[in-house]
């Protein structure tokens, strides 16, 4: 704990320097800004996901998940409670017994038959803190009429797409990067530039042509239709190529002297040494595939059994009403796996730097 505090309160002056200089103020200001930019939307999503449906639909911006207390009132059913600071209530909560007007009809819960007239502005909702677990449990367990959201099927589809697409991406991209970084051939630079240049084309522009390609390959409507087009990424090729350029050629030559085939050089030497870059690409690929929405929607929309989580979330947005509380809760659930993947893989990025052992 003391170590964490020391880490968090470091200054540019070093260990002994207690003075806080301009650098420190700027650095910490910048870092705090970054933390807020990343953290606020996620925290907002999480905090909102545990709010009751009413609070979300009323655009309740308070941080705590506050729910209006309800009570069974004789002859009137379950009604929300209000506090009204008036001697006639004798401290008892009241319920509305008529439409809300400037003077609203209310009644004490212990004497529901006696109607009082309260100015609307004086009625204060009685609230308690309550974690709305139903936001999570209803869709997952298919309770509360949530039959259309097959959580575990969607999760399975998403995991399949993410894992397979990431593996294929890593394999194909690293092979391309190996060739582009370690072999001398005519047009090597041209190919590299061409691949990188495709970054300039937004995916929405090639959507239609991609649709025809996938259609003619006969994988439209299957999960492979989502996996295959996403396998080759210019970012991945470029990232891995730049990293592989830093692997000394002498290592490859040593392996050639050691009678290693070119495939073996790639598999046993280049790939293990590219582990840090591969982890970065793996993280990116997992995030891309996990959060992918538009393309899976196009390919998979017609078959609900093949929906991914992200498409599945649209089931909560109807034409006339949206179940925002379910969307938020399921968004939080869908964030968990990506977060875990990141936590697991980010170690390799740092250890990779330490193991590039050439002097």
């Amino acid at each position, binding site marked *: 704990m003391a170590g964490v505090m020391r880490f968090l309160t470091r200054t540019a002056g070093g260990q002994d320097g207690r003075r806080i200089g301009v650098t420190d103020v700027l650095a910490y200001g910048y870092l705090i800004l970054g933390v807020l930019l990343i953290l606020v939307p996620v925290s907002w999503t999480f905090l909102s996901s545990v709010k009751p449906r009413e609070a979300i639909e009323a655009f309740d911006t308070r941080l705590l998940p506050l729910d209006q207390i309800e009570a069974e009132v004789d002859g009137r059913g379950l009604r929300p409670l209000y506090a009204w600071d008036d001697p006639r209530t004798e401290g008892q909560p009241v319920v509305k017994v008529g439409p809300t007007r400037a003077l609203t009809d209310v009644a004490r819960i212990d004497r529901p038959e006696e109607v009082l007239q309260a100015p609307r502005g004086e009625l204060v909702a009685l609230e308690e803190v309550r974690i709305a677990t139903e936001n999570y449990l209803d869709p997952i367990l298919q309770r509360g009429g949530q039959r259309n959201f097959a959580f575990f099927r969607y999760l399975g589809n998403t995991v399949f797409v993410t894992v397979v697409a990431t593996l294929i991406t890593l394999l194909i991209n690293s092979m391309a990067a190996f060739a582009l970084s370690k072999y001398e051939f005519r047009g090597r630079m041209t190919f590299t530039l061409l691949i990188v240049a495709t970054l300039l084309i937004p995916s929405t522009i090639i959507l239609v042509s991609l649709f025809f390609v996938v259609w003619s390959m006969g994988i439209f409507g299957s999960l492979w239709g989502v996996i295959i087009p996403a396998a080759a990424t210019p970012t991945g090729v470029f990232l891995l190529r730049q990293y592989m350029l830093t692997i000394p050629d002498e290592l490859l*030559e*040593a*392996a050639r*002297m050691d009678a290693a085939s070119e495939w073996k050089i790639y598999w046993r030497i280049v790939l*293990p040494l590219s582990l840090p870059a591969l982890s970065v690409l793996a993280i990116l690929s997992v995030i891309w595939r996990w959060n992918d929405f538009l393309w899976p929607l196009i390919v998979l929309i017609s078959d609900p059994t093949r929906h991914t989580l992200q498409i599945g979330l649209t089931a909560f947005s109807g034409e006339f009403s949206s179940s925002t509380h379910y969307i938020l809760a399921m968004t939080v659930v869908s964030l968990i796996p990506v977060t875990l993947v990141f936590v697991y893989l980010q170690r390799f990025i740092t250890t990779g730097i330490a193991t590039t*052992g*050439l002097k």
Partner: protein
Amino acid sequence: MTQVPALRLSKIVKSYGQLTVMHGVDLEISEGEFVVFVGPSGCGKSTLLRLIAGLDDPSSGEIEVAGKRVNGIPASERGLSMVFQSYALYPHMTVRANLSFGLENMRMDRAEIARRVNHAATLLQIDPLMDRRPGQLSGGQRQRVAIGRAIVREPKIFLFDEPLSNLDAELRVQMRVEISALHAELGNTMIYVTHDQVEAMTMADRIVVLRAGRIEQVGRPLDLYNHPANRFVAGFIGAPQMNFLGGVIAAGGGLTLDCGGTKQVRFDEAVPAGARVTVGIRPETIEVSLDGQGELTGTVTGFEQLGSVTYIYTALPNGEKLTMQLAAQVPLTRGQSIGITLPLAHTHVFLDADGRALPMAGGHR
């Protein structure tokens, strides 16, 4: 030489596009020889080694290993192994895996791999390090592992590409001795590339001096030292460097030094009078007289007392500089005048026109 040479290079030319870096190199290396390629950086010695190894292909010319032409044969099938300057150990593998990687690729029997790896480990005293990774080893240990990786393949020829240049001075001397001992023990042919003439002198059976893609001279270390074929070799071999003084061939034979004085030398070939020459004298052959008696007088500009030897740096009246090496301790002060005598017997004369050494009449020494 009746025996088939371990390596024969004939008319090796290497060009990169317009740039030619090797200009027709011919060389024969016999079985079991320790040959050192030496030369300043950029002379093509590493390029030559890579051509022999098969990591590059020559633009023209023949390479034969043990009588068999190997042009176009991949590096792994030439039966050579190489120790790289950066060692090029696989950083993600243990020392054991580094040693056995090549043998596994050759689909060798497991027991044989283990035997060879253990043998090399014992030979190089790296057995305690077998399960470590290269990153956990010191420079000298990495060096041994790199040599071990070369040994396990039991190659026809070992190739070393400046293997000691990343080590500190003390370790370098130690590894120099060890590599020589290894050569004596294994008896393989070794080709060793270095820019350090001390390594060349101490380790080589034969030295190949290279400059700008051409062989300047090939010979045993002392032959190169005593009979350099040209000014470049004379200046490159030997530390401190040979002294060079300007001179002119005199009309009646002999030569006149720019710094004053004449030398009665005769050559085995006709040299036109008035030709510019450079006279080379080894620092240790110059006679020094502290009381100022000698054919020349020099001013001491600096000196280094190392105990067993003393280096004296002097300037001659015409501005030329002369370094002397005495195998004794002598009292000196900066600015003092000393007498200098240049011994005729140990003088080399190089023609300025082409740098060639002029053959001295009578073949002194």
